[in-house]
């Protein structure tokens, strides 16, 4: 509190108001931030397996990191995570954006289309993963049944190493295209009207208007949405757990899933912590770059 009021009774009782309001969050933040991060940093340097309680905890230096970074399994997981993120995020951004522009052009049926596109955001993703898992079942799934009707043999989808990642990405797109659309559509509605009037008078066509007017004005929103999407994609876990459990032959194992397996499948706390640190570093490096870009875009606009 910066105000220089005389020390009245009211003022004195309120001196701590900012801290009182922050207390619940600060407490929780200590719990999410400081304690777990310190804990994970410390335990990443030890050999600690909960399944071998007699072995105890012993300091091993950087050996956990060494083991992880020399293991092809880790690099496979890192590669899978990058493929998953770098394909699903741009595709969802492009389709979501195009969808927002298309819905914006509708007249009569717009309300019903809007309502229909909200439904994917209201249903539990786990249910949808189950539905997709059955749809893409190689023998009983509807996709391969339909393909066989037109004389094609469908691939194994989730059960083949060649198509598993692609199928996981298709499911991810189902979940996130509506999200990107909703955000972009809301942003589109907030754009000032007079700019569009002006370019229309100047005779710009639809593509020109989009590229030179709409896109630059939407840039901050696009970037924030891309950051959120990218962060969630790098941490992908639920979809992998329900759809493939990382299989077949590690073809869809993401870093977060591998970390879960190490820490809670094999109960190797040391190795799991070391991988968790690696994930945090990957996320921070990508995230900081994007946040810097976002802040620059914001400053340009203001």
């Amino acid at each position, binding site marked *: 509190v910066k105000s220089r009021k005389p020390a009245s009774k009211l003022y004195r009782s*309120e001196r701590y108001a*900012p801290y009182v309001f922050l207390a619940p969050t600060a407490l*929780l933040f200590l719990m999410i931030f400081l304690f777990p*991060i310190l804990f994970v940093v410390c335990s990443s340097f030890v050999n600690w397996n909960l399944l071998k309680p007699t072995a105890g905890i012993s300091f091993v230096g950087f050996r956990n990191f060494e083991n992880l970074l020399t293991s092809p399994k880790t690099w496979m997981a890192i590669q899978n995570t990058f493929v998953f993120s770098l394909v699903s995020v741009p595709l969802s951004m492009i389709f979501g954006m195009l969808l927002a522009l298309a819905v914006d052009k509708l007249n009569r049926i717009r309300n019903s289309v809007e309502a*229909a596109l909200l439904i994917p955001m209201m249903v539990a993703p786990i249910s949808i993963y189950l539905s997709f898992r059955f749809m893409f079942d190689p023998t009983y799934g509807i996709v391969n049944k339909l393909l066989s009707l037109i004389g094609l043999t469908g691939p194994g989808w989730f059960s083949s190493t060649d198509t598993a990642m692609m199928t996981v990405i298709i499911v991810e797109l189902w979940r996130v295209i509506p999200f990107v659309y909703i955000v972009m559509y809301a942003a589109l509605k907030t754009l000032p*009207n007079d700019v*569009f009037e002006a370019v229309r008078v100047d005779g710009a066509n639809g593509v020109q208007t989009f590229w030179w007017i709409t896109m630059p004005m939407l840039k901050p929103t696009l970037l924030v949405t891309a950051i959120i999407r990218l962060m969630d994609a790098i941490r992908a876990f639920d979809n992998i757990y329900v759809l493939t459990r990382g299989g077949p032959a590690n073809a869809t194992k993401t870093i977060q899933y591998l970390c*879960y397996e190490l820490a809670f499948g094999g109960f190797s706390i040391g190795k799991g912590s070391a991988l968790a640190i690696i994930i945090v570093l990957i996320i921070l490096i990508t995230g900081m770059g994007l946040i810097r870009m976002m802040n620059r875009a914001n400053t340009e606009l203001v």
Partner: protein
Amino acid sequence: MNEPKKKINGMNGIAARRCACPANETGQPKSKLGLFSGLLLVLTLAFCMIPLILMLMDSLKSSGDLMTLNLNLGAPLSLKNYASVFAATGFLSSLTNSVIVAILVTALTVICGATAAYSFTRFTSVGTRPLSNAILICRMIPSVVMGIPMYIVGQRLGLQDTYFMLVIAITTFALPFQIWMLIGFYAQIPKSLDESARIDGCSYYQAFWHIVTPSAAPGLSATAIMTFFFSWNELFFALIFCGNRTKTAPLTIMEFMGYRTFDWGAILAAGVILMVPTLLVGLVFKRYMVSGLTAGAVKG
């Protein structure tokens, strides 16, 4: 942000502009839905809806009818799968667990989020941008980072398989994003509002409770709905912390596909049941949901 669906005056938004002046639009490209956009719309709508419709249809068919090699369109429909899902041991109690956890997490997040957002928008001199960046970074921390220490602590303190552990874990993970959303909502409430309340003799606490919080109700509702959805769908912490007593609905459904052959009819029926609560909440509070989804990304 919480603008009404139909805008009468075309002051903001290109969508409203056309509604306001359809007469003087002669041959403008945007008034026509092009072939490309039309195709995109139809395909996306189909892509979005087909898995849902198929799931609903298939959940009414017996597993025997589903596991055939032909399309079997004429299979009889019945509610048998739903009956068997509800009869399965632990399914009803896991639904109750999910509801309890989701409500507790939502309550805790709204309390912490509202006080934090008030504090951040009213007291700090650093400004909201570094702050929201910091929170955005918090949001990037993967859940395993919290999962490992909390698991160890929970095990040592004997808190495994309690609501407390699960609620705290989900809250700490959900909170950064909810604060980020709420800062946006609270920043929109003019400071002059609580300043005048202060001049009238309100303390900060009174101003928070009687003046600012009621004005922030739409934002709080939006945040609450998002948190409810988030904790309803939570899988990671549930996998780590839940035992038989606190098992949530997603876990029970995953168990249906655990052993032997998959009983797809029952799995899909359970999936449909899992969708119902959030679907109802979403349909009833549609407007708040949209503002919750777009909060933080769109400056309203």
